[in-house]
């Protein structure tokens, strides 16, 4: 994909792309259990390729999630286009896939769209750049990361967690450097597999966001997938024909047995079925195009509901929903019978005095004093099922826990002052007065 972008930006192309790209590469070696030497080697190879490409690049280690601020999990309104004068795009890199850094056969030095849009894009050698790649992550962070991933019981949950953390990190990098769009290199085959996997994980409500062309859940940064029409085979041929250099790094599930995780299962199944019924992948892809980003019964008339803490989709748990009421209750019930976590040192709602001033006084003390239950109730169905495989929430990066605390505090307070708020509509104001 990077190569395609390169081609598109070059002076010779018929329709020139008009954006200023940068490349982000995430080093996930710690999560995959790679030794530091292997990581350094892979990093060196990547840097070589990135330098030939010529775009500004940022290499970020996954350990930096421990430094992220909680604002990563908030959804900002979209900024009007043109505040930066340009429409910048950051190109996301793909350590999870073994391809694409395209090469152009003609080998022209990529002449970027100079002068089209102004702007000095931040350079990696910029001393003010807090994420300078020359500073390797500290050993403590690496250890914290490996502890987090070791504490997850199943490979499926590990992969989902990795994806969530990766997304947050990329988002953060994009926001810090002022990029408004993130492009990922997901091909048609990968997206079809992702669709079926999401279905099996209980994320049926969010398929359009997970596998569609553009994903605007994060507000100001939009994730787009320009490669979604190309199958893996096409990409492989392209790379081969145009001598595209690529780096292979082992991912979380490399060499894992087929039954180890849902992702592996689905991948193996789809590829096997594709042999027998050659139209399988394209059929699933076409079906994914028919999905829309709306709640099923069109109940989006009301104000947007709360969003999931990890994946930032509107929550799809509906307690009034009769059909999976049992299913939705079971994971909640189970999570509350987990071994009791130590009581929080600073409970969000002290059940002591100060009823008037306290955040949750009166007859309804906040019942979510258990921090685990507090986090779980802010997650969507799919994320809740994943959390079941995480016995303790402590190893999670602090920004997630902080944001969870903040949200539940806010919900608590809102409940308290609900009756005093002046609502916009008349009927609500009347019921509020009761």
């Amino acid at each position: 994909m990077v190569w395609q972008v390169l081609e598109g930006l070059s002076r010779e192309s018929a329709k020139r792309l008009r954006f200023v790209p940068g490349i982000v590469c995430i080093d996930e070696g710690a999560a995959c259990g790679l030794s530091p030497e292997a990581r350094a080697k892979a990093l060196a190879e990547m840097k070589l390729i990135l330098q030939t490409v010529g775009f500004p690049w940022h290499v970020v280690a996954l350990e930096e999630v421990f430094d992220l601020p909680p604002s990563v999990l908030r959804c900002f309104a979209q900024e009007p286009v043109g505040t930066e004068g340009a429409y910048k795009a950051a190109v996301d890199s793909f350590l999870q896939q073994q391809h694409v850094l395209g090469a152009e056969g003609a080998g022209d030095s990529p002449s970027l769209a100079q002068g089209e849009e102004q702007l000095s894009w931040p350079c990696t050698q910029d001393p003010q750049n807090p994420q300078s790649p020359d500073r390797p992550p500290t050993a403590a962070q690496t250890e914290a990361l490996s502890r987090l991933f070791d504490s997850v019981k199943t490979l499926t949950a590990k992969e989902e967690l990795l994806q969530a953390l990766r997304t947050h990190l990329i988002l953060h990098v994009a926001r810090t450097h002022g990029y408004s769009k993130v492009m990922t290199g997901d091909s048609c085959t990968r997206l079809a597999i992702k669709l079926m996997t999401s279905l099996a994980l209980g994320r049926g409500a969010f398929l359009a966001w997970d596998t569609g062309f553009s994903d605007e859940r994060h507000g100001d940064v939009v994730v787009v997938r320009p490669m979604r029409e190309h199958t893996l085979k096409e990409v492989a041929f392209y790379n081969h024909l145009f001598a595209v250099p690529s780096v292979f790094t082992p991912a979380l599930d490399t060499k894992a047995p087929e039954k180890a995780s849902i992702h592996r299962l689905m991948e193996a199944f789809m590829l096997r079925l594709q042999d027998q019924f050659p139209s399988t992948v394209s059929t699933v892809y076409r079906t994914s195009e028919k999905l829309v980003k709306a709640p099923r019964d069109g109940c989006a008339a009301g104000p947007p509901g709360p969003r999931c803490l990890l994946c930032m989709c509107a929550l799809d748990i509906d307690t009034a929903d009769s059909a999976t009421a049992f299913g939705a209750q079971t994971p909640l019930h189970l999570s509350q019978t987990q071994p009791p976590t130590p009581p929080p040192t600073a409970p969000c709602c002290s059940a002591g005095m100060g009823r008037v001033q306290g955040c949750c006084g009166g007859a309804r003390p906040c019942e979510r004093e258990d921090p685990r239950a507090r986090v779980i109730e802010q997650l969507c169905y799919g994320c809740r099922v994943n959390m079941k495989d995480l016995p303790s929430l402590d190893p999670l990066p602090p920004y997630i826990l902080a944001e969870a605390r903040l949200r539940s505090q806010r919900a608590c307070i809102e409940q308290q002052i609900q009756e005093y708020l002046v609502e916009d509509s008349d009927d609500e104001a009347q019921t509020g007065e009761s």
Partner: protein
Amino acid sequence: MPAPQCATCHKARAALRRPRSGRALCGACFCAAFEAEVLHTVVAGRLLPPGAVVAVGASGGKDSTVLAHVLQVLAPRLGISLRLVAVDEGIGGYRDAALAAVRRQAARWELPLTVVAYADLFGGWTMDAVARSTAGSGRSRACCTFCGVLRRRALEEGARLVGATHIVTGHNADDMAETVLMNFLRGDAARLARGGGLGSPGEGGALPRCRPLQLASQKEVVLYAHFRRLDYFSEECVYAPEAFRGHARHLLKLLEAARPSAVLDLVHSAERLALAPAARPPAPGACSRCGALASRALCQACALLDGLNRGRPRLAIGKGRRGLDEAGPPRDGEPERAPAPDAVPAF
């Protein structure tokens, strides 16, 4: 190691662990819990109002046997009365044995039983005849496609014969999960848009249908049948190995092994699928030949039979419906209703 105590009554020794939650229960408590859950499903979804005459689609297999038994237990509380309807598709060596099991059950529960046969309803076409007709073209026989459509029509007919107001079938959670997977793999957006709920409310004169066992996993159904010592017929249909559903079933088994809650997650996903309005099936009208519910001029059953009768069995399957005498989707005026349902014109 001593066996654990039942988690509910704390008196009896636990005899099983529920697959979903892992709780240890004794046989009686498990059956009670199962029945309570089915009751909750029916009541919360308002599926079977009091006074309903419910036709139970009985095939002799474990799902319909358990369904009939549970509904019988719950009938006084729900205020419904039951009738058994069995469908004879004419599959030699399979259906006769299953029907024998249904007859035994009907005698045991003292419920009225009606058997409707394809041969009578559909102008002599049994499933064996259909299989012979579609065989030999180099492609798969698509038996399940025919059987599914015709069986639903037959059930509807049987239900009308006994004067029922609702139809219930024994589909369990595993069936729903397989259906979703299968529809996605085959790209059947129309079925995806239609399915996923608790059954259809019965538009356009069709009887309302529902699936009370929809949230029970297959393992629990089998466990219930075991503890209540129900007698059922457990062999697989003769045509099942060549069905596409087999792939979906295999995938589901693998998924369940990797993550036990996969079945429920799939059902949850299926309910919340949001498909584009263009992909949804058009509003249902009436079939121009038999008057049944149809999205196009001819209902699928009539279309399939038409193809069979003309010697071109695949006429109505897939996208090639151009050979049929359809006038296109029904417009505002109601197409006139044809006479009795079994009068399918033969060439």
